[in-house]
């Protein structure tokens, strides 16, 4: 258990020390909020959607959690490249504990990033339902664990950073854009509709939106159930693939 704590602590320290990463991971959500929020706001209101910032904010919070978490998971590749992975792999600790510690640490960083963006969104006009903020935190934590474990699983199968751009373009970006973070899931053409409904982040965004603003597509109960199942599966997959790493 000490080992799990130590690995968790390491991820947190690395996150807290990478000021550029925190600022960078803040800039993007801010840009999205300003450009899309204020840019599309008038049209969205005209179309009868109401306050777009209110709609967009949960999506952008989910995005920041997605990015921070999945990159925390993918850090396994950096550790491999710089050699530190070996140090953990030969330690007298099971690989499952190592994976668990890393994942919890990465997920905590993702969650913290989400909370920071939540405050930014507050400043920009988000008016959340404070009673349901704990539920939002739970959803946020599940998103964070799910994507950290997914990042770990992917990184466990990669030998170097070459595939990084590929993951960015073909995994992370589609997950974000096809999640309902930016647009409502109602009345979508077929194809997009199926894609969004099999996208794990759709349930995260919907859960956050349901908890923070009371508007939902799938419903909070469905979102939580789906996220719980997916998170368990991704942690199991990540732990399995991580345990098979050879250095």
């Amino acid at each position, binding site marked *: 258990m000490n080992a799990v*704590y*130590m690995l968790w602590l390491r991820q947190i*320290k690395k996150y807290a020390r990478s000021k550029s990463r925190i600022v960078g991971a803040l800039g993007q959500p801010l840009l999205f909020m300003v450009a899309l929020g204020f840019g599309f706001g008038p049209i969205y209101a005209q179309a009868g959607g109401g306050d777009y910032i209110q709609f967009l904010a949960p999506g952008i919070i989910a995005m920041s959690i997605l990015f921070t978490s999945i990159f925390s998971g993918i850090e396994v590749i950096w550790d491999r490249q710089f*050699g*530190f992975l070996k*140090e953990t*792999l030969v330690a007298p*600790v099971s690989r499952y504990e190592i994976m668990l510690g890393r994942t919890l640490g990465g997920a905590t960083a993702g969650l913290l990033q989400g909370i920071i963006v939540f405050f930014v969104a507050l400043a920009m006009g988000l008016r959340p339902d404070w009673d349901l903020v704990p539920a939002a935190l739970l959803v946020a934590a599940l998103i964070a664990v799910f994507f950290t474990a997914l990042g770990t699983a992917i990184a466990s199968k990669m030998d170097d950073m070459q595939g990084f751009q590929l993951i960015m373009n073909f995994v992370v970006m589609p997950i974000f854009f096809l999640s309902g973070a930016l647009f409502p899931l109602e009345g979508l053409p077929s194809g997009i509709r199926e894609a969004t409904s099999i996208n794990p982040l759709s349930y995260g965004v919907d859960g956050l939106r349901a908890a923070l603003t009371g508007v939902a597509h799938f419903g909070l109960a469905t979102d939580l159930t789906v996220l719980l199942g997916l998170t368990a599966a991704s942690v199991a997959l990540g732990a399995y693939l991580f345990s098979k790493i*050879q*250095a």
Partner: protein
Amino acid sequence: MAKRKQEKTGPGKSDYAIEVSGLSKTFGTGEKAVKAVDGVSFTVRKGEVFAFLGPNGAGKSTTIKMLTTLLQPTAGQMRVGGLDAFLQQDEVRKRFGIVFQDPSVDDELTAYENMEFHGTLYGVQRADLSGRIQEMLGFVGLWDRRDDLLKTFSGGMRRRLEIARGLLHHPEILFLDEPTLGLDPQTRNHIWQYIQKMNREEGTTIFLTTHYMEEAEKMADRIAVIDYGKIVAEGTLFELKKKTKSKSLEGAFIALTGHAIRAEGAEPGRVMRMWHGRR
């Protein structure tokens, strides 16, 4: 020496710290397959200092990676601390410590944090940990720099930290993969003295690789020379010198492995090209 006596009576099975038979590792498949380690067999007795020597790319590090559960062998058996190093990985990891050939420290952590991380993972008791860390950082002259991030360290300082970390806990078996590479003679001496003391006082089995022949001469009870993935000679310093009619280990090493300069680094592809070029 006490070890001689042991040799005469002949060791029982449980007297071995490391037993390897027919160990092989092939990278890649088909045409591109490279046999980095090719049917290697040897034993290391408990409490012995065993030097594993060979030119660059000979298969030393690959063998150590397999023995330390980092790499899965293609074929063969290996027992470390009496346990199957492939089937009982979690148990085996409790028996050994290792100083790696290439960097394995975390740049984003301080020297102290690197040590603390290691000590905790290796189950050093909380009460002993800070004292041990102070002792070992002091030993390699880094105590004053304990709160600095590793990324501010020079190459030699990193190397010293790697060694201090590897010696933080005292395992049954210690693997040292070119531990003193790039260190000045003073530091090298200092470190080997410590390791020798560990070996004598605690009976720690030492499995070392080095390119400094005088280190192996001074330290090793027995020496194995590996080349192109195969063991080409094994024995005491005296036996190797006698076999090759050489005056020094360096002479014996050259006699056994030839004068050809090997591809730098152990990248399998490069080794293969060299190999095929030679045949």
